[in-house]
């Protein structure tokens, strides 16, 4: 059951929902290109908006992206 303290969290997520979103598999397929685009200084979310949108919504995929980006910068 929805509690008072959940409302803001839920409504923010719902407000950001789009008719067209890619899933985790499609995001993962493009994650290496997306990370390299970001490292090169370009705005990856402009070049690949659906991947950027997915990463904003999916904490699991976002954690992979962050780790990959750190690795690329540090290796």
């Amino acid at each position, binding site marked *: *059951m*929805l*509690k*008072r*303290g*959940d*409302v*803001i*969290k*839920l*409504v*923010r*997520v*719902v*407000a950001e*929902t789009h*008719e067209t*979103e890619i*899933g*985790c*598999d499609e995001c*993962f*397929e*493009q*994650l*290496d*290109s997306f*990370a*390299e685009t970001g490292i090169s200084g370009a705005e990856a979310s402009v070049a690949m908006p659906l991947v950027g949108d997915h990463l904003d919504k*999916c*904490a*699991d995929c976002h*954690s*992979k992206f*962050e*780790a*990959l*980006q*750190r*690795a*690329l*910068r*540090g*290796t």
Partner: protein
Amino acid sequence: MRERTNEQWLAELRGPNPDEALADLYDLLIRGLRVGLGNYRGGVDANAEDFAQEALIKITGNLDSFRGESRFTTWAQKIAMNVALTELKRRRWRDVSLQDLFARREGADRGPADPHLTSEQLALQNTVLEELRRIIDEELTDRQREAVVAVILEEMPISEVARRMGTNQNALYKLLHDARKKLKRQMEASGLSAKEVLAVFDEG
């Protein structure tokens, strides 16, 4: 490590003497895992070798799926991060069942009304809350409701919720996407704009 083009990586790994390329790739994966996941709670250091080894098996077994849209080493490190994070999350959440999560949630007091709210504000919050509850109860399927609670409200990793619900991460994301779209449409149909709802609750 010797610099290689994507084509050289693929040729060496597929060739008759892949040992040097495998050793270089393994070293790169270890370094990447340590840098990429160094601050992950639960730690990656003790397991970096295992994760790199497992990733290496996946990488060499799936060379044909590399599409050449990034550097080969980036693609390989992506696979290593996936292996490591999937396992680290599995370990971190292994003792939590969805039933426990839902039971704890029912027992928890999640933000009673702010005592500083006026009676008008409180009434408005209650009206919105009741309508949102109705939409969730009447419009979502049981599985959608479970996923919304576990992933969105309780912030359990989607991969872990998927495992417990007998599905996979991609399918669960799509199920959640359908649930979010339904909630959005029904909120609009009920005259609840997100901006107004957030204003009503932020006032508290």
